[in-house]
């Protein structure tokens, strides 16, 4: 293998291209017309336009991407994050063309991508899930009876949902019927299937996830936990590794559970098992993401491993030389996502041209940026500009280092959320772990924006 096509854009494309360079691999970037001259296209060995700005016509255009891959003799395709990364048709298209897809098999993707099915699979294998339906539940009367039995609030989810869509929380039994019908309608419109399932809605939970790598030769390794509860509208803002304030035995159980799930799904390549963790430290399977994640660098910082390199090696059929006992965590890492948005204006997106860009640096500081100074941030895609990842020997050090790094970060030309991130890092609740996935919206908002 010597040429990798990166079927993505922005920061994750930069990330993947850099590891390709390190490994001596050629990289091909593909771009939409809106991303002409984007930073990742400039650092790739080759860059090819695949269509207009709208993702459906470019980054989601399997035919266009496969054509470029063939013409440019790509040996492998890395799908990155989002876009086609969890699309099993794309994986199959690669396979049919004899191009290595750097990710799991279509079979695992489909197995875990249908969330009602995944839920059933977990139940069958004694993996804890929140109370709810056995797999999908599409009959209203059955659903209502189950919801009444579970107790409210309940959550209705589209089986094929994703990206925070197709989800409704029902607090009032009276409203169950209308919401149930609404989710089914939305699900059909958005995901092409009206299949839904029901779960008890667990409150004040934390989002804890476990990174795994599976080599496809029967070896599954985990790389510990990440805490991702700092979310706004289901978008993570600050992530850390390892997840703090969890009893060691529970953490270990979650890790083992993630390995077991990967084994059950005959999983290959990098994946993440997401759990809900309640205040009394009970955890429940939420879903498994069959791709690399935005927050992967915190795991890399703590384990000293290049997960993108790991993905490429697995795709090349490498067998792990290490065993779980050889894998050791060291210290604590925090990632802050810096977005082009204005928290003081209700997080209004702020596309535009970067006029100047001063990056932090030094010991234990890593910056992964999708943009260079003077680049234009287009309105067509997500608002993330860069990520600042800080590593410290302790969590306190990682927090202090992150605050310092954010203080040194200076971007002019667009609004960014770095002060908001610092507000989180310096908050007593964050320091003491008194948080949950709705903490930013329910607690921090009221404090930060109380004068607004």
């Amino acid at each position: 293998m010597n040429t990798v096509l990166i079927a993505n854009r922005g920061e994750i494309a930069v990330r993947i291209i850099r590891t390709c360079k390190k490994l001596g691999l050629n990289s091909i970037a593909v771009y939409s017309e809106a991303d002409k001259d984007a930073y990742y296209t400039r650092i790739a060995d080759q860059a090819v336009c695949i269509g207009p700005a709208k993702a459906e016509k470019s980054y989601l255009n399997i035919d266009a991407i496969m054509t470029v891959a063939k013409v440019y003799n790509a040996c492998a395709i890395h799908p990155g994050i989002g876009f086609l990364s969890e699309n099993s048709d794309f994986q199959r298209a690669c396979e049919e063309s004899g191009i290595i897809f750097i990710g799991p098999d279509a079979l695992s993707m489909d197995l875990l991508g249908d969330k009602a099915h995944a839920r059933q699979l977990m139940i069958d294998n004694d993996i804890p899930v929140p109370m709810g339906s056995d797999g999908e539940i599409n009959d209203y009367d059955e659903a209502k009876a189950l919801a009444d039995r579970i107790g409210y609030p309940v959550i209705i989810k589209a089986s094929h949902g994703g990206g925070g869509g197709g989800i409704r929380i029902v607090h009032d039994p009276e409203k169950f019927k209308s919401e149930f019908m609404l989710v089914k309608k939305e699900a059909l419109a958005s995901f092409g299937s009206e299949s839904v399932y029901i779960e008890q809605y667990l409150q004040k939970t934390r989002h804890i996830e476990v990174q795994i790598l599976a080599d496809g030769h029967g070896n599954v390794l985990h790389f510990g936990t990440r805490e991702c509860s700092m979310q706004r509208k289901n978008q993570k803002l600050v992530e850390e590794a390892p997840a703090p304030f969890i009893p060691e035995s529970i953490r270990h159980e979650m890790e083992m559970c993630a390995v077991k799930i990967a084994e059950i799904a005959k999983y290959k390549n990098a994946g993440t098992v997401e759990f809900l963790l309640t205040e009394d430290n009970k955890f429940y399977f939420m879903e498994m993401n069959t791709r690399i994640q935005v927050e992967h660098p915190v795991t890399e910082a703590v384990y000293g491993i290049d997960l993108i390199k790991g993905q490429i090696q697995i795709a090349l059929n490498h067998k792990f030389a290490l065993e779980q006992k050889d894998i050791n965590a060291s210290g604590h890492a925090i990632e802050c996502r810096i977005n082009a948005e204005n928290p003081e204006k209700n997080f209004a997106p702020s596309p535009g041209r970067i006029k100047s860009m001063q990056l932090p640096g030094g010991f234990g500081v890593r910056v992964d940026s999708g943009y260079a100074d003077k680049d234009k941030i287009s309105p067509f895609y997500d608002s993330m500009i860069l990520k600042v990842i800080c590593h410290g020997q302790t969590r306190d050090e990682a927090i202090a280092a992150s605050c310092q790094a954010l203080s040194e970060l200076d971007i002019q030309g667009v609004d960014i959320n770095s002060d908001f991130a610092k507000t989180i890092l310096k908050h007593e609740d964050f320091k003491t772990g008194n948080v949950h996935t709705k903490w930013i919206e329910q607690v921090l908002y009221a404090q930060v924006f109380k004068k607004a």
Partner: protein
Amino acid sequence: MSNEEIFGIINYLNSLSFSEFELETGDLKIRIKRDSSSVKYIEKQPDEAAEATPQIKIEEDNNKPSILAPITGVYYQSSAPGEKPFVKVGDTVKEGDVLCILEAMKNMIEVTSDKSGQIEQILGTDGDSVEEGQALFIFKGE
């Protein structure tokens, strides 16, 4: 790349739904537009050229009141595909009514009217992008 390969690609592309396709190898740049299926060998242009394309800031026609795009983004006439448009030509709207949605960076931003009046012209096309400051709606003059 051989001519054969190039034309192979063109034929293949011709069957697809996207409207433009660019291929660059070395100094050669091929741009294909689906509507004409024509192949043009065009010069590479610097980024600045793209930037210099004038923002379409339609001046208020005969002093007629208008609504401008508050942000660069994709224009949607309705709340969801298949739903009926928020407004149509001839509708009378009042201050605060939602006129359209602009999608920017995965955010759906409702554009509301800052005045009351009757809509004379709708300038946005569903699903197309508009530039910040571009006129979206022209109202009847008072």
